[in-house]
């Protein structure tokens, strides 16, 4: 009899406690991000769409069409052809097929001139056909500064007065 009543009370009390917890959750902030209206802040070094970086003074592509990226690419998604000799060598056309790209960053790491970057924050890649996801040189031509693999995580004196201590993720991206 007493055991029956005690178990009854325990069951009732456990329901009350669990309802307390759900009530607390009812008033916590929703974690949902209302995507098209609000967007999440990406980490600075999130791997997203490629960009061909430019020399900020001459506004010219840094790429010398050395073909290293195309050769290291495991998905074989980079195709390019250069023209010109020696220091004047520049890509004639440069195509990255994002249907194939697996965002491994190898092309960026292998590039000897820091001429390609994936730290662009352009992750909204969509298209109505597969050819929409094949990007050519004009599309990937950088229009300004993009952080590359050589950009320090917390640049001292790059527009920031006091560099945030260990604030790798705090760095604002100029785009």
């Amino acid at each position, binding site marked *: 009899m007493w055991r029956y009543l005690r178990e009854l009370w325990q069951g009732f009390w456990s329901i009350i406690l669990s309802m307390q917890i759900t009530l607390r*959750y009812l008033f916590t902030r929703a974690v949902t991000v209302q995507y098209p209206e609000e967007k999440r802040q990406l980490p600075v070094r999130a791997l997203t769409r490629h960009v061909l970086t430019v020399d900020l003074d001459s506004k010219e592509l840094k790429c010398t069409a050395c073909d290293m990226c195309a050769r290291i690419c495991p998905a074989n998604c980079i195709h390019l052809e250069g023209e010109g000799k020696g220091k004047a060598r520049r890509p004639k056309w440069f195509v990255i097929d994002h249907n194939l790209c697996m965002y491994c960053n190898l092309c960026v790491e292998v590039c000897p001139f820091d001429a390609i970057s994936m730290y662009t924050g352009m992750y909204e890649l969509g298209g109505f056909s597969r050819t929409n996801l094949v990007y050519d040189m004009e599309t990937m031509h950088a229009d300004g500064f993009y952080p590359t693999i050589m950009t320090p995580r917390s640049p001292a004196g790059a527009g920031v007065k006091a560099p945030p201590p260990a604030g790798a993720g705090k760095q604002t991206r100029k785009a």
Partner: protein
Amino acid sequence: MPHIQSGDLVARFYALFEGWGIPWIVPRLIVMLVVVSIIILFISVVAMFLIWWERKISAHIQARFGPMRVGGWHGWAQSIADGVKLLLKEDIIPTRADRPVFILAPMVVFAAALAAYVVIPFGPGLIVEDLNIGILYVIAISSLAVVGIIMAGWSSNNKYAALGALRSAAQAVSYEVPLVISLIGPVLLAGSLSTTKIVEAQRYLWFIVLQPLAFLTYFTCAVAETNRLPFDIPEAESELVAGFHVEYSGMRFAIFFLAEYANMFTVCAIATTVFLGGWRGPLLPPWLWFLLKTFFLLFVMMWLRWTLARVRVDQLMDVAWKVLLPLAFANLGITGLLVWAFS
């Protein structure tokens, strides 16, 4: 004959037709039609609101937003959009289904849900018909829904539907017993089965204070009666797909849905009437007090739904026969003794 708020108006309406020499049945039918239309409209609006509200509460308990798109402010028009979608959907009747029973089943369920609204006192005089056996009538009518559910399960020619209907019948029959017995306590205190008289009897003290055990057993049974979590094994998705309404689509499914939410409102309204002092409350108008209390109970029901997990069939029967029934009987016995001793 219905007496809404102003019985005089209805009486004058009848007299008007009598003066024109029209048979007495015509004005009465007109009044009935108007009252039923008002109730159906009320049920639809409440059900739509409850569906939206439930989705919001479930979402926020899980730290989500729930519907946010349709209609602008927090997706308030979501239920309307869903209703329109269900109206436009194809009405499928399975090939080897028992057609007349299949078509009739949602109507029976909805009629049972609708009929209970006759005795709900929304305010002083704001009641369709103040039956002197009001509570008994509600109990009798609410058992009728099981018939519709069994019809739906049987006629669908689907093993999941049949199993769901069987479970639902077992559950409804088991929980009906403690439900009725827990309602007898307050009825003893009020000395009447009429819903209006019960509210009048709570002028000084709500019956939840005198009968907390009866309230808890009634509320648990009410949750089970309306087939809601944690007692929703008749439509346990993980085992039975959707239970008795697997084969229903479009508007027929919508009617089942509507009946479920109408039933929820009914059981909560009865709980408000019997235990929470009905329309009584300071400052605000009576009908608002009634709706506030009822919606609070509905909120508790939803809250409970998103707190507890579904019970097994044997656990369900255990709770009904080994816990709720003894408690309800104990409450009834003690109440009876005290009422006898003090009168």
